[in-house]
């Protein structure tokens, strides 16, 4: 178990930076997820922690000790690879025993550890199989077994469940989270799937273009994104963005758009006043909107239904506005059909305003 500090770390491939001045502090025993699209530098970060890539600049510390120059074998980390990286010519037992053998454990100790790890992962009946005789989910468990058997300081999971089918993925999410809790080992989990990060991690680092965008708990990331990019990346279906203008009308600050005029809440006015430009980007998640075919009281967004999609338990409605199309999540009793006029009210506690240029969030 260890506290991981990443101090001003840069990674260059040739002259192009893949990671730019990354700072992270992972508490002992915490589950940290690095979230971002492909090419954001998340895998490079993980590989630098593992010792598979040279750290171009900055330091990585385990419990305050600089480990930049240690080879991977001396860092006491265990890694699970995206495509499992099992040794195909070795049996499941030998795969899992490999890190122990390389560290010179006694045979009976190896047997004991492998047995308890495989029991925990419910693969103790597969010990004599070869990796080629396993299903994807089983391979995944073997790879995890190889990581936990050593009781390392730190787990590094590199998109470990990206190749599993959706149902198994959902199952493994719970399994991995439970495993980490019960072992209490610090875990860094790299993923491009925001759902995985939100559902499993204690803390999430959102990365984009090699830069850390936001560092926070899942609920902070989801509810208070620091910029439009994070807001758009996290959440499924994705947040709706609209260009709008801020205007003062009779003492109120109002957000104006061809399809609506909605006043800001008083506490939001305070956040906007003085700093915000006239033009802003408004962001609202599909579930922060409620839709109706009859006009309710109060400020509404008027639009026309473009298409409705039934998702089993919910319904997604695409609504055409003057300059954009937005999505609204509603219940299945919604009766509107395409080309109907519709009216949406916004839950103003849950909307966001972003700077039109650099995208930072006012609230």
């Amino acid at each position, binding site marked *: 178990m260890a506290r991981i500090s990443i101090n001003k770390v840069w990674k260059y491939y040739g002259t192009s930076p893949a990671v730019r001045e990354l700072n992270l502090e992972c508490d002992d025993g915490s589950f940290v997820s690095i979230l971002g699209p492909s090419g954001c530098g998340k895998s490079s970060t993980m590989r630098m922690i593992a010792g598979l890539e040279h750290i171009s600049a900055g330091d990585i510390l385990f419990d305050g000790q600089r480990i930049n120059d240690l080879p991977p*074998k001396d860092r006491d980390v265990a890694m699970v690879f995206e495509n499992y*990286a099992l040794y195909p010519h070795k049996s499941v037992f030998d795969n899992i025993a490999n*890190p122990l053998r*390389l560290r010179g454990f006694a045979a009976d100790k190896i047997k004991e550890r492998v047995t308890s790890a495989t029991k925990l992962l419910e693969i103790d009946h597969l010990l004599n199989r*070869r990796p080629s005789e396993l299903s994807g989910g089983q391979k995944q468990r073997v790879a995890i077994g*190889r990581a936990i058997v050593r009781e390392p300081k730190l787990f590094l999971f590199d998109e470990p469940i990206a190749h599993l089918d959706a149902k198994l993925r959902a199952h493994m999410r719970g399994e991995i989270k439970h495993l980490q809790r019960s072992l209490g080992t610090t875990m860094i989990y790299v993923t491009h799937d925001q759902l995985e990060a939100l559902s499993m991690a204690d803390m999430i680092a959102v990365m984009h273009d090699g830069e850390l965008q936001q560092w926070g708990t899942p609920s902070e990331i989801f509810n208070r994104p620091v910029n439009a990019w994070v807001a758009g990346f996290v959440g499924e279906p994705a947040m709706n963005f609209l260009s709008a203008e801020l205007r003062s009308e009779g003492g109120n600050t109002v957000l104006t758009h061809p399809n609506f005029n909605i006043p800001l809440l008083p506490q939001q006015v305070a956040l906007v006043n003085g700093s915000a430009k006239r033009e802003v980007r408004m962001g609202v998640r599909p579930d922060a909107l409620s839709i109706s075919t009859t006009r309710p009281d109060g400020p509404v967004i008027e639009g026309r239904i473009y298409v409705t999609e039934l998702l089993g338990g919910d319904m997604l409605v695409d609504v055409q506005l003057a300059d954009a199309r937005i999505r609204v999540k509603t219940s299945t009793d919604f009766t509107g059909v395409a080309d109907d006029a519709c009216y949406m009210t916004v839950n103003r506690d849950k909307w966001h305003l972003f700077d039109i240029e650099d995208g930072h969030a006012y609230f």
Partner: protein
Amino acid sequence: MTSGVTNVSVAQVPPGTSLFRARGTSSDIEARPITAVLPLPVRLNSAAPRRYYLYLMAPAIAVLAFISLYPFVWLIVMSLQDVGVGAGEWVGLKNYTRLFNDVRFLEGWVLLAQYSAMCLALQLSIGLLLAVIVNGARWEKFLVTALLMPMMMAPAVAGLVWLFLYNGTFGWYHWLFQSLGWLDSGSILSSTDTAMLAIVLVDVWQWTPLITLIALAGLKRVPQDQLEANMVDGASPLRNFFAITLPNLYPVLLIAIMLRFMDNFRFIDAALVLTGGGPADSTKILPIYLFEVAFKFFKLGRGAAIALTLLVVTIILGKLLVRIFEKPKSERV
């Protein structure tokens, strides 16, 4: 259910089980047992025609038969005859039985085994080492091209070049080894202690690059993630090489070994130029002896018999090699 009723295969469904199956349109989605909707095709289409393959291949087969099969059959026939210059005389298996009392034939086998084993061992170890060094090096492409130079030379020419290098009066190696005190008197090629090593060295010089080239191709395909996983698991680079890289190289190394050992049994140009089997028959490996019997003494029948035994042994050894290497491969999958 209207059409196809007469033409269905009905699977046995235990009573009480309800199996339903949906079909294309929504009006079809109703309670319908799965057993009722498995019509067999009325008739199968004829198999894809493939007779023309033979016509397309016929010219190639004819040419092959003429240039390859005909001489081979003739070789077998010849080995059963006492052929010199001119017509032969049928002698049955006498050519073969005589071989077993022929000391130089048996000696030729021993020498060939020594020669081939030394060549293979040196070429494999040096070739593999070079491949590992060159792999991923900054000047990789240039280095590979440079390494391939010896291979581009005709073996007989290579033999001539080394003949000069080994020469007892002005040869560079001769001078070097004598300066180092490794060689007391006489030239390298005229001493029975060193002549064999000398022809091995030429083969190693010329053909190690081939092993390097093949191993290099194999190295590119070693799964990087397994290497990395093993590193994180705690393996040193050397251990990583033996645990991951080498097992992944087995299939390509098999090809390399096969090629080289068969070449050792066939390519004698350089050795012929350098020693011609001497001194005192110390380098008279079997193919050189075969060459002498057939083309110096024109005992074509005996030569054919030696050639055939050589061929049979080559085939058996080849099969054996494949079997040894295929075994771990089938376990790898």
